[in-house]
């Protein structure tokens, strides 16, 4: 697919019939839309035990016995997990991979979409396959898979030693490790969870449990010198490759860097640490007190707090702004740099920043109708379904992808029309 610069930012409105597909097939599943908004697709049932994918009204050449998990990759390729004669694989734009497996699930994409990874099971052994190339080593069990942002490295927590049924003692000796591109660390742990691959692809960090009680972070198989009551997902500092992770001590959470406290403040909860693209800032979701949630940026919490949840903290491309979702008394709100937009929604999706970071927009839903909010103002349209808005590279236009009155609509609007 073309780079956003080359997308059609001039046609104000394109329409593709969708509801009418219902008549052509036994049933049509929930639609997916391409990042550029030019395609709408859905899994369709064409008869007993026969499925296909319909994209812009045309089906893939070959049907499959089963199809599920239809998703567009960030580069616009359309992927689905497909099965024929009991074997499973991934199909990309209708063409199945050459590798077939006992089972395939959880496809994930590199940031640009050029790499696609899946988890697979073959003969009760587990591994990952990236771009149709399976790991050379497979394992008795595998969890917490991840793919590096550039798509070159894949990793997962893997079981490297066998233990008998209900053999709790063998398990507690440590039967798990983490594998990078299928190559496990030498060291074993009781548990390995939530892996992170360093930006240069050379380091793998993970949460580990050394015993049933001692948690820490291991980097390339080497645990930090300190242990904690609990830890959450590690992140790599993009600038120096050090590792940060939330750690729990004496009932309170803080952020640690390479094992030592990095933030002074303690929180009731602290998770989802996320670095700005330039690595200069770090945001995390925190609970300041019981049932009192917000975002902390570089350790300093926002003033606006939410009694139910805070999620989806995202940085602007320039790393200077942060947006998130908060839920209070049953309603969702959008917060950008500690200022809460005036509307309350039944659901809100992660906000999206314009390339220059000046504007933020989000897909929102109220009473079953979807619309978009830009900088605290609502678009006056309403839709039956919607996908995340996309800003044009110059930040002056915005792409809305919706389903309205049974048709898929691709709209390009000047941002000024909504944001003023």
């Amino acid at each position, binding site marked *: 697919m073309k780079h956003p610069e080359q997308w059609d930012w001039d046609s104000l409105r394109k329409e593709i019939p969708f509801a009418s597909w219902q008549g052509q097939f036994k049933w049509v599943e929930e639609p997916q839309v391409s990042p550029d908004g030019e395609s709408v697709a859905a899994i369709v049932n064409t008869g007993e035990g026969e499925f296909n994918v319909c994209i812009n009204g045309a089906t893939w050449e070959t049907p499959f016995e089963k199809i599920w998990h239809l998703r567009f990759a960030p580069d616009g390729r359309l992927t689905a997990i497909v099965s024929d004669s009991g074997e499973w694989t991934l199909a990309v734009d209708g063409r199945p991979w050459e590798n077939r497996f006992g089972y395939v699930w959880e496809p994930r994409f590199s940031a640009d979409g050029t790499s696609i990874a899946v988890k697979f099971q073959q003969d009760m052994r587990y591994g990952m396959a990236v771009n149709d190339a399976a790991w050379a080593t497979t394992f008795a069990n595998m969890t917490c898979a991840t793919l590096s942002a550039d798509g070159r490295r894949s990793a997962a927590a893997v079981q490297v030693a066998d233990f008998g049924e209900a053999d709790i003692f063998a398990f507690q000796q440590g039967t798990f490790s983490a594998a990078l591109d299928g190559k496990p660390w030498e060291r074993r742990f009781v548990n390995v969870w939530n892996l992170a691959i360093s930006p240069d692809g050379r380091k793998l960090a993970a949460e580990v449990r050394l015993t049933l009680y001692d948690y820490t972070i291991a980097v390339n198989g080497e645990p930090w010198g300190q242990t904690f009551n609990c830890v959450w997902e590690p992140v790599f500092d993009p600038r120096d490759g050090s590792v940060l992770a939330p750690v729990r001590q004496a*009932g309170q959470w803080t952020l640690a860097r390479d094992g030592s406290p990095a933030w002074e403040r303690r929180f009731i909860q602290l998770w989802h640490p996320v670095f700005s693209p330039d690595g200069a800032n770090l945001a995390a979701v925190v609970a300041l*007190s*019981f*049932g009192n949630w917000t975002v902390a940026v570089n350790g300093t919490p926002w003033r606006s707090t939410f009694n139910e949840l805070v999620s989806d903290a995202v940085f602007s491309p320039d790393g200077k702004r942060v947006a998130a979702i908060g839920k209070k008394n049953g309603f969702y709100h959008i917060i950008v740099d500690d200022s809460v937009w005036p509307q309350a929604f039944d659901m809100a999706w992660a906000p999206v920043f314009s390339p220059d970071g000046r504007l933020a927009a989000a897909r929102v839903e109220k009473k079953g109708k979807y619309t978009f909010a830009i900088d605290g103002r609502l678009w006056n349209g309403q839709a039956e379904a919607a996908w995340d808005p996309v800003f044009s590279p110059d930040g002056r236009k915005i792409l809305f992808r919706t389903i309205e009155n049974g048709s898929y609509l691709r709209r390009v609007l000047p941002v000024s029309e909504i944001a003023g």
Partner: protein
Amino acid sequence: MHDLYAFVRGPLAWAAFGVFIGGSLYRLLHLLMLVHRKEKFIYSYMSWKYSLRSILHWMTPFAAVNMRMNRVLTVVTFAFHLGLILTPVLLLSHVLLWEESWGLSWWTLPDGVADVMTVIVIAGCGYFLVRRLAQPEVRYVTSASDYVILAIAAAPFVTGFLAYHQWFAYEILFILHILSGEIMLAAIPFTRLSHMLFAPFTRAYMGSEFGGVRHARDW
């Protein structure tokens, strides 16, 4: 004898009330500070409505299933606690002391009624003692301290009753009565008599959890 009387009536009374009030405040404050320090989340579940609902239910005779299952005990418990608190507060001779020292006075019980209530409290203590000894599940969890606090609660009433009726050595009994009352006051914050202080809080917490979170009754 007079000196002893003056001592228990004067400095020791001051001390007893001081320990009772100061100690109670200390214990309650300490508990609340502990909540604040380690279990702050409790505050967020406390509800006046459900706290009071629970407390009132458990202050009403036979309002809880367990009270109906133990009818005699329920009658004894309510009569005992009413007598234990009301008799000393509303006794004419106690109020006269308050008036003499502080010029304060209030409505009092007729002496005959107070006398009956005193007997009820003493009988209640007897009932609790027998229950402790005779009922296996109570006996099993009974320790020496349980007998001690029962004795502490009974003593002012026994001595008061004897002194009032001027049986045995009145003067000694009178002093012993004051002394045992003072011991009881001072013991409240620092023995399990402190259930008097803590019960409203444990009840309120359980009432709030059951009512506000679990939408269920707690009686």
